[in-house]
């Protein structure tokens, strides 16, 4: 089915949820509110006309200063049996960055959501293992946000002092030359 | 005076065997290298002939790292136990007619006992290292050696029954008197079980689980370095030489060959030993590695019944003929 038709069907089914339908280079995005995202995606997955069984990609986008809702969570769906794709973009406001997790629909969404949380700070409610994934667990800030500076934060990583202390303790061992020289 | 002669013989045997071991590593690298379309060692000496010496010098002068938290006495003792037990087996092995340090009547049993003791070194190394990989490697090794020792012992029972002796010299002479000239043909089942068990006993591919590098890094000697590591390697290769020798003595007719070679009384024995060692390397270049449970299943469900069947068949045939 053409993606535009799918989007229209979705709009009919969830009139209050679908905010806009955007098309670019033949790819169609449905922009939805975040409240019933789980229902919308479940409908897309199980509906026999859509049958979107493959979650190709899930990621966050930061529209700082460009849009009213700062964040978007983007779901790229594909139907392997019917060979059509559709993009669903859920709006997430800055002051309350949370959305329901879709791990109950696709187990593969697990790590995508953890990554989005890690880099954007968007909280996925109902996620079974909601931790940072790519960055250390004690990292501060969310690097892919637009207001996070490219060279990294000015402050030193707080574990740095600890490492320095540890290296001082190791100083009594000599790692380089023959014993007794250092 | 007799004591001094024995000492000289012992020294000579150990020296010759260690030389063989050193060049077995070279031989292995060359054989596997050529099987894998590469050259093997080429840099040290002509065609890399001095490579074993360079390896030895390197290992000898390497820093000996003892990780924190190891059980020191056991950690130090483990490689020595392995090597000493392996070398002790040499005492009962005849390298030519009459050339044996201790011509004892239960030579075969003694060699078994010593190869079991050698596995203590492996188990203790795994236990003392305070490393999980080494620990798993030690566990695997103990289970593996125990199960395959049974199969190996049983596979040789047929030989003992045929020869009527446990003395290795007698076994060789009995083969000369045999119709086929060697036990590999009448005892084909026993020979097969023995060869498989021999690979497992010396922890070689496809049974190199205790040290399998893909999952256990290096198995029981993960934490060893420098000379202690070299001792383990020595013990492994000495074990290989001994197993090859037993195979040559018990199944392939020992020092007897189709014709006599003047001045070299053990020419045929050496050829047979070298062939068996080559066989080890050939297997290593060809086969993947078994999984732990598959290895156990093979040992208990295939090899031991086969060996038992061999004993029964040998017994029946022997009764029937006599």
């Amino acid at each position, binding site marked *: 089915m053409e993606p535009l038709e799918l989007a229209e069907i979705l709009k009919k089914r969830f009139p209050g949820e679908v905010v806009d339908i955007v098309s670019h280079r033949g790819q169609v995005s449905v922009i939805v509110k975040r409240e019933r995202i789980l229902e919308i995606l479940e409908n897309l997955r199980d509906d026999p006309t859509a049958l979107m069984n493959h979650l190709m*990609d899930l*990621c966050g986008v930061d529209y700082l200063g460009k849009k009213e809702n700062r964040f978007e969570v983007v779901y*790229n769906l594909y139907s*392997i049996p019917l060979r059509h794709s559709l993009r669903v973009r859920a709006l997430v406001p800055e002051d309350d960055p949370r959305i329901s997790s879709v791990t109950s629909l696709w187990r593969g969404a697990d790590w995508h959501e953890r990554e989005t949380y890690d880099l954007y700070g968007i909280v996925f409610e109902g996620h079974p293992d909601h931790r940072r994934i*790519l960055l*250390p667990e004690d990292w501060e800030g969310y690097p892919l946000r637009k207001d996070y500076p*490219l060279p990294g934060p000015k402050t030193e990583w707080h574990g740095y002092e600890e490492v320095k202390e540890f290296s001082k303790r190791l100083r009594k061992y000599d790692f380089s030359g023959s014993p007794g020289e250092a | 005076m007799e004591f001094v002669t024995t000492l000289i013989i012992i020294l000579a045997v150990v020296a010759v065997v260690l030389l063989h071991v050193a060049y077995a590593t070279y031989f292995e690298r060359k054989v596997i290298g050529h099987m894998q379309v590469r050259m093997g060692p080429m840099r040290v000496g002509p065609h890399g002939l001095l490579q074993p010496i360079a390896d030895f010098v390197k290992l000898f002068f390497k820093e000996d790292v003892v990780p924190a938290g190891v059980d020191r006495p056991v950690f130090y003792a483990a490689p020595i136990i392995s090597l000493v037990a392996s070398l002790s087996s040499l005492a009962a092995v005849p390298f030519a007619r009459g050339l044996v340090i201790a011509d004892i009547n239960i030579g075969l049993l003694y060699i078994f006992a010593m190869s079991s003791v050698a596995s203590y070194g492996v188990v203790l190394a795994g236990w003392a290292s305070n490393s999980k990989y080494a620990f798993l490697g030690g566990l695997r090794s103990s289970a593996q050696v125990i199960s395959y020792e049974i199969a190996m012992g049983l596979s040789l029972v047929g030989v003992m029954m045929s020869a009527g002796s446990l003395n290795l010299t007698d076994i060789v002479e009995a083969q000369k008197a045999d119709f086929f000239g060697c036990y590999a043909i009448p005892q084909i089942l026993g020979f097969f079980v023995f060869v498989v068990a021999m690979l497992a006993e010396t922890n070689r591919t496809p049974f190199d689980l205790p040290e*399998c590098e893909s999952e256990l890094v290096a198995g029981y000697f993960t934490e060893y370095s420098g000379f202690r590591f070299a001792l383990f390697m020595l013990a492994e290769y000495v074990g290989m030489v001994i197993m090859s020798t037993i195979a040559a003595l018990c199944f392939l007719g020992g020092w007897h060959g189709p014709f006599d070679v003047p001045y070299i009384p053990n020419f045929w024995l050496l050829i047979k030993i070298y062939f068996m060692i080559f066989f080890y390397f050939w297997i290593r270049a060809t086969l993947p590695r078994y999984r732990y449970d*598959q290895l156990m299943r093979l040992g208990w469900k295939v090899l031991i019944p086969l060996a038992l069947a061999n004993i029964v068949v040998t017994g029946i045939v022997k009764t029937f003929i006599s």
Partner: protein
Amino acid sequence: MDTTRMKPVLEEEGELFTLQMGPQHPATHGVLKLDLELDGETVVRCRPVVGFLHRGVEKLAENMTYAQSMPLTDRLDYISAMANNVGHTVAVETLLGIEPPIRAKYIRTMVCEMSRISSHLLWLATHALDIGAMTVFLYCFREREWILDLFEELCGARLTTSYTRIGGVRQDVTGHFLESLLRFTDEFPEKVHEYETLIDTNRIWLDRTQGIGVLTAEEAVQLGLTGPSLRGSGVDYDIRKHRPYDAYPYLDFQVPLGTHGDVYDRYRCRMEEFHQSNHLIRQCIEKLPSGPILSEDAPDLVMDPRPKCVTADASLSAGLIKIIEERKHFMEGDVYVSTEVPKGELGFYFVSDGRGIPMRMHIRSPSYIHIGSLPALCEGGMISDVIANIGSLDVVLGECDR
């Protein structure tokens, strides 16, 4: 520090034994770390830990032009850099609406398939080595060397190729290159047969791979597996057929499928892909059309985000001109374009705000999802199967951590 050192080897939490496998471990193919909880040799729980190689490629790309961010993709899956380059370029071309010339399409398809062969060779080498078959490793490297030499001849680099340009490719192929490649395709099927003689029907190999790490078709789709790892379970999903890009619609090839979804079927799928890729390369060489290799619309490498337009404006009196600072150079919008790289589906999600710099570049890397599915494969199996499973998914950590 001293207290942890003196801990006994067995941590007695029930009967479980925790093994931290990696990040420095010979069989984890890079810096993957697995927290394994073992009951004897059986894996009770497996938790992959990734991120040791995180370089922030997505953040870096948001501060570069599209053309500048292409070399970053070399460093994702460094084993098949060509395929990544093509994936990035196809996505950018879709976003900017640039159509590359047909010759460039064929060349790209050709190098893509070459990199598929080279990547699968490395996979087979390491997978076999993990299971203990050492000789296959060196045989595979012999042929891989040949392909890398060809890459060197084509673009001067063996691994980090950076070969494509937005709207085409950087250099044209030479006659000598095509000849060598043709000779390679002549000899390669025999070499594949040589690997197969070593392991394909080997009893030990079958014991180690058949019935191990089984995934049904539904489970595999649920987990988001793609590429040969998905097709081993019998799901017909190949982006080259489903959403064809470059020259794939004009070429003839089959998609090998497995049936059982175990390690062996995934292995067979990749072995068949050797033949298919070889066939594709031959077709590309035979059909290679002449013509330009770079589109006329191709933007220059700088992709200046703020070009200044000088125009005569009717509202002003004659002779006067108006300088407009044209910021918006391209169309606004977003696209998700994925390509079939050797590991699976490599997707790029671009959001453009009209400048020459992407507002957002998200990389959907197959290895990341594949590693995420490791617990589903490994739990309940033996510790040796963990190694076989990692090998059968064909993961690269550079791509996983980005």
